[in-house]
């Protein structure tokens, strides 16, 4: 399907179920299937945008890959190593190569550490640098993300959201990673700051040859940054496609509806919104067959019973994949 030598990260059949406990003896009465059988890959230097509504399992995918949560099933191969099989010591080494940037710049920095100490800590812990060398490296990181090195002795609460997010980026870059999960990294910032941070992330990507898994619900952001986009709906992928293809020719009815909800910056453009009936189903009790079928405008009988399989649109090397019976 894809050239496996080139891909940095390969996720296969990833599942994360959360138990719902109830009753006197805390018996597991049900499972929330937050992520249910997700497969994708990420190439070196590439950005994969992961979009979907709140609660569809985007963040769970990101955190499971980094093993900040233990996935229920599946494999994650990073640089040829099975991340889920690593011992805790090997995991610490691997974590130098994969990092995360958080959504909320207010809770992602320890309020009782100076921002200099926050950025220096990973370098110290992994014994990458010490003394003057450490100081130089921290200065470099500060300059690289657009912060003044002389602000190092200040505390996070003295900075604005955008500046804090830069500190978070500097901390993630400290260990010189290859792969960064950006978990809604710009969602909490206002639009002008968003643009600055997005440009910074793009520049850093070129400079350090980074790969991003960019989790967001903002279609404009992924359009700007992503090479490929994956659309998620209630724990499953609906469609994966190169960014231009996805915006030009969305195949899955859910993707079509999602894109139609994105405002077009042209007041004269005719409104083409596809309004979906009903609500997003609970991952506690997802519909049988295709999870989208109760809301799908193009629903067929087969959708109600059979889960759709992956279908390639066009030549496989193009990588436009869709999980929908319309194309099967």
């Amino acid at each position: 399907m894809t050239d496996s030598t080139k891909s940095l990260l390969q996720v296969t059949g990833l599942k994360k179920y959360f138990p719902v406990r109830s009753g006197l003896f805390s018996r597991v009465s049900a499972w929330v299937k937050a992520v249910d059988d997700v497969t994708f890959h990420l190439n070196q230097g590439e950005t994969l945008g992961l979009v979907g509504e709140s609660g569809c399992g985007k963040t769970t995918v990101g955190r499971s890959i980094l093993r900040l949560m233990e996935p229920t099933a599946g494999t994650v191969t990073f640089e040829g190593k099975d991340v889920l099989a690593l011992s805790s010591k090997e995991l610490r080494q691997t974590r130098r190569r994969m990092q995360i940037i958080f959504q909320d710049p207010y809770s992602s920095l320890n309020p009782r550490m100076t921002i200099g100490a926050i950025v220096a800590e990973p370098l110290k812990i992994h014994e990458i640098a010490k003394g003057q060398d450490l100081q130089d490296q921290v200065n470099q990181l500060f300059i690289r993300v657009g912060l003044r090195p002389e602000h190092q002795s200040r505390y996070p609460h003295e900075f604005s959201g955008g500046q804090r997010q830069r500190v978070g980026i500097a901390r993630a870059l400290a260990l010189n990673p290859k792969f960064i999960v950006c978990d809604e990294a710009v969602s909490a910032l206002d639009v002008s700051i968003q643009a600055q941070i997005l440009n910074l992330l793009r520049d850093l990507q070129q400079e350090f040859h980074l790969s991003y898994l960019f989790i967001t619900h903002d279609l404009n952001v992924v359009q700007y940054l992503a090479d490929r986009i994956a659309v998620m709906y209630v724990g499953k992928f609906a469609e994966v496609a190169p960014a231009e293809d996805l915006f030009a020719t969305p195949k899955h009815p859910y993707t079509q509806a999602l894109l139609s909800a994105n405002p077009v910056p042209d007041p004269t453009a005719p409104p083409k919104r596809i309004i979906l009936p009903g609500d997003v189903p609970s991952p506690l009790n997802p519909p049988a067959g295709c999870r989208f079928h109760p809301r799908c405008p193009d629903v067929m009988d087969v959708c109600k019973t059979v889960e759709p399989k992956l279908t390639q649109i066009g030549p496989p090397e193009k990588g436009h994949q869709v999980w929908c019976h319309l194309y099967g």
Partner: protein
Amino acid sequence: MNHSKTGASLKTKVASLDAEGLAPQETPWEEFLRVFTKDYQALFGFWVLVLLLLMALTGKVLTEWWVVFDPEAVRLTDKFLPPLSVPSPDSIPEDRPFGGIYLMGTDELGRDVFARMFQGSFVSLSIGFVAVGISLGIGILLGGLSGFYGHVKLWFITVDTLIMRFTDAMMCFPTFFLILTAVALLPPSIYTIMIIIGLFSWMGTARFVRAEFLSIREQDYVTAAKALGIPEGRIIFRHMVPNALAPVFVSATIGVASAILTESGLSFLGFGVPPPYATWGNILSDGKGFVFDAPWLFFIPGLAIFLVVLAFNLVGEGLREALNPKLRSR
């Protein structure tokens, strides 16, 4: 007219910001001081406590090591003298108080109340601090274990269930009567009192620390530390504990006050620190029979306890406000 004035003050304000619009640097400690020193009630409490601490230390020295004020001298000639009175002419010259005056009067045995209060301040304060030290130690340990390793299963129950149900069980007993029972069964001594008060007052702290740990464990900076491969011990002690402890110390301040109050209550009932130690509680207790004949025996220790407990509570309240950024804007 007004315009130019606000314009000028705006300019000075802008000038004090640096190139990136940041205010002049302020460490958390400086910020804490700025907020705390503006709170006059807390400041009052703070100075009362400083005074008390000095009094307790000098009291220890001047009544026990280098006896200037003798709390144990019995003067049968000078019974029930009101405050600020001089010794009677037929009293024994060696037993006369320092300065030739009874600052706070004498009691039914002619003992100098001022000297006894002086000695008692050290006892009361040390009971407060040691008891709270013990309860903090137990509370932080159990609460921390429960909050961080709570999900770990031991045989058929989790660590969290085990510790918290034990805490709940301890809370079910009316603390004061539990202490009373324990004190009645154990040999009476000042150390027994300290340890027992400490052993029976850690439950609030434990619950508090557990709650703090549970909420901090889910913060992104802890997740970030995990993602950076920082060892667990360092995550706990460098990232979690400093953020969990501020509110704990606030409650500890108030805990000192309640320990002093508990000791006074025990002494008042006759189960407290045994003689010859004078504590505020047993001075009060001894004085209760003479409320109408010698009211100072009753009111002086009562007022002292009231003042100290009030001061601790005011300081605790001030600390809470200065350490909690959410309350600060008010």
